[in-house]
């Protein structure tokens, strides 16, 4: 199949492209970027991208797809459907499935299911420890050779520093990154951010120290070993500063944040709004500002969603009993445009970089660019067209989002995965 995307504003940070031009796709691959008169007369499908951004498909390196084991919340099919509606063409999925993705068999199962049912590319992330129990290393080498792109115990932070150290040493041999969900569990017991709002609502507060203590530890471990570490979903001003200083010292540390950490504060928990309950918790306005500054100065490398689908019964309940997390795949681009680009913290080019190129490089996957010869993963959107989030219409199986009614920008109009148009004029291709 031949496809020409004409007259779009093509942004490809990896290749330094930021101009109005054409993208030519042939046999599922990027064939050429630029105006080519020789193509006149060739029979092909044409997308008129005049006034729109044409960018590499977004790469979300922190997603919970829930399959296998918790298909009542999400499946690989529904999760990747939500992804493509959000312009995300590749996701890295977290290992806290049932059974845990801590061995070759589960990695292969996820890749198989993704091939059969997925709308986007799926890259499994393996566990650091067997059963996420924080005791014994999982078979990391086997997982890497069957397709795992990183390891993490995500929501079950590795409390034992020696185990984390060995995980860094061991995974370094296989050239993959350890992703650390930084939370000192002895400090992490609580419902929301510690502060005036928690004190008023009578909810147990989680101090920023819960995140910062472990971030410090893992930065120091990586520094000592000369290994890589990737700090997951940064939420506090203090962690931004820890990473900033570590990067200055040359530590091989990368990090990510989520749209909710630059879009909302702990005020969103008022009224016992369980859709504002997540881990790490929403912090203060001061933290939100620090996250934006960290994105701006390059301290924070990536924007991920931590897409965490939950069944309504797990959210429509007492705040203290409600599960942590929100869905995010369909709102991440819009929140990035509204709160980062339109507010002047990032250029569109930088936003795209943090949502495609950077996570691809951290994971070592051949995604996030429009390089000639790469399989064509592309998102096309109009950054000035406004749309309203209606959580009841989200394509994820779960609707637990705090952004209902938010007015955002740039809903993806075309999404191309491996050269196939999956979203056409904002709707799924039949």
């Amino acid at each position, binding site marked *: 199949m031949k496809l020409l995307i004409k007259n779009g504003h093509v942004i490809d940070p990896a290749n330094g492209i930021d101009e109005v031009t054409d993208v030519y796709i042939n046999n599922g691959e990027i064939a050429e970027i630029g105006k080519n008169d020789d193509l006149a007369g060739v029979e092909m499908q044409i997308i008129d991208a005049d006034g729109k951004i044409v960018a590499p498909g977004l790469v979300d390196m922190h997603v919970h797809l829930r399959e296998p084991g918790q298909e009542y919340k999400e499946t690989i099919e529904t999760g990747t459907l939500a992804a493509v509606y959000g312009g995300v063409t590749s996701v890295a999925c977290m290992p806290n499935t049932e059974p845990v993705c801590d061995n070759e068999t589960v990695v292969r199962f996820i890749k198989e299911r993704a091939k059969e049912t997925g709308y986007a590319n799926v890259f499994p992330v393996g566990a650091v420890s067997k059963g996420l129990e924080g005791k014994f290393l999982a078979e990391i080498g086997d997982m890497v050779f069957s397709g795992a792109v990183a390891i993490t115990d995500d929501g079950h932070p590795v409390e034992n520093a020696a185990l984390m150290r060995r995980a860094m040493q061991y995974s370094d041999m296989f050239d993959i990154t350890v992703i650390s969900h930084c939370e000192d569990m002895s400090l992490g017991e609580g419902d929301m951010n510690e502060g005036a709002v928690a004190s008023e609502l*009578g*909810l147990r507060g989680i101090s920023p120290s819960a995140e910062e203590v472990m971030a410090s530890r893992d930065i120091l471990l990586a520094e000592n070993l000369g290994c890589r570490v990737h700090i997951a979903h940064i939420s506090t001003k203090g962690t931004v500063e820890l990473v900033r200083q570590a990067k200055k010292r040359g530590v091989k540390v990368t990090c990510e944040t989520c749209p909710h950490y630059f879009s909302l504060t702990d005020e969103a928990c008022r009224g016992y709004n369980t859709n504002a309950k997540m881990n790490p918790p929403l912090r203060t306005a001061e933290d939100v500002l620090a996250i934006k500054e960290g994105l701006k100065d390059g301290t924070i490398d990536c924007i991920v969603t931590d897409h965490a689908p939950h069944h309504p019964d797990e959210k429509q309940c007492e705040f*203290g009993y409600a599960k942590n997390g929100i869905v995010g795949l369909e709102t991440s681009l819009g929140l990035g445009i509204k709160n980062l680009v339109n507010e002047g913290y990032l250029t569109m080019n930088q936003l795209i970089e943090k949502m495609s190129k950077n996570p691809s490089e951290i994971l070592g996957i051949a995604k996030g660019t429009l390089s000639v010869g790469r399989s064509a993963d592309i998102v096309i959107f109009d950054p000035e067209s406004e749309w309203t989030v209606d959580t009841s219409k989200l394509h994820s199986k779960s609707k637990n989002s705090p952004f209902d009614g938010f007015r955002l920008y740039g809903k993806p109009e075309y999404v191309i995965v491996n050269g196939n148009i999956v979203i056409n004029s904002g709707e799924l291709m039949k």
Partner: protein
Amino acid sequence: MKQSLLGLENLTAEQINNILSHASEMKKVVLSDNKKITNLQGKTVVNLFYENSTRTRTSFELAAKYMGANAANITSSGSSVEKGETLIDTAETLNAMGTDILVMRHSMSGAPNVIEPLVDASVINAGDGMHEHPTQALLDMLTMIEHKGHIEGLKVAIIGDVYHSRVVRSNIYGLKKLGAEVTLGGPATLMAKDIDKMGVKTFNNVQEAIIDADVVMALRIQLERQKKGLFPSIREYFKFFGIDESRLKLAKPDAIVMHPGPVNRGVELSSTVIDGDRSVITQQVTSGVAVRMAVMDMLINGGF
């Protein structure tokens, strides 16, 4: 439209004053020989208690019965709660049985906020986690008025486990609305971060909190907090934060001593203070029945 009492946060000063003056009338019933009026005749009050409670549950039950209502009690043991039924399902079941007032106590902050929109019954929060306990604060204020004649201008010192206390939050809302000054005292490990943004002063030195107080209110210390390491020992707690006669001297000479109960003798208050002539702890209990009668009456018959 039905009304509920989930907390004092959203009540106006006028609403609180109306409840307190109606409660004064109800107190006459409680103290009379014939404790039977008909204001809630034919109505059904269900006490849904997910936490152990003797005094609050009994207080609501008697308040309902004094006004002629049918009253039923459900506690977390021996009910569907034990079988894993969700809060919402339990509340909807009770609602379907024709409940007019659902009195609810729950260990989770905000639990009554979850069910209130889902049931036809009026909901009264009888204590939710660390959030609010509105009828306790109302009975505290009624007792203060009985002794001091007014709330406005009073200095109220509340001492103890502020972090876990729903009593303190409801009292802050109520007392501030009626013009009192509130100071909090207690160990740093039991203080709530930035709670001063609710318009109160906080002290770790209990003496400073008590100085010139008209009312000294001690909060109950859950003894299991010590096991969680929030303070070193009961002995040391009393030494630094307990109210004895010498500390009480820092308050105004006519200051009253209050406690939501049940009291740990020799922990929050010394026995001499508890049994002394400044203590109004048992009067608080009587006020509790009156306040709960007033609230239920006004929720059902208007005037809330």
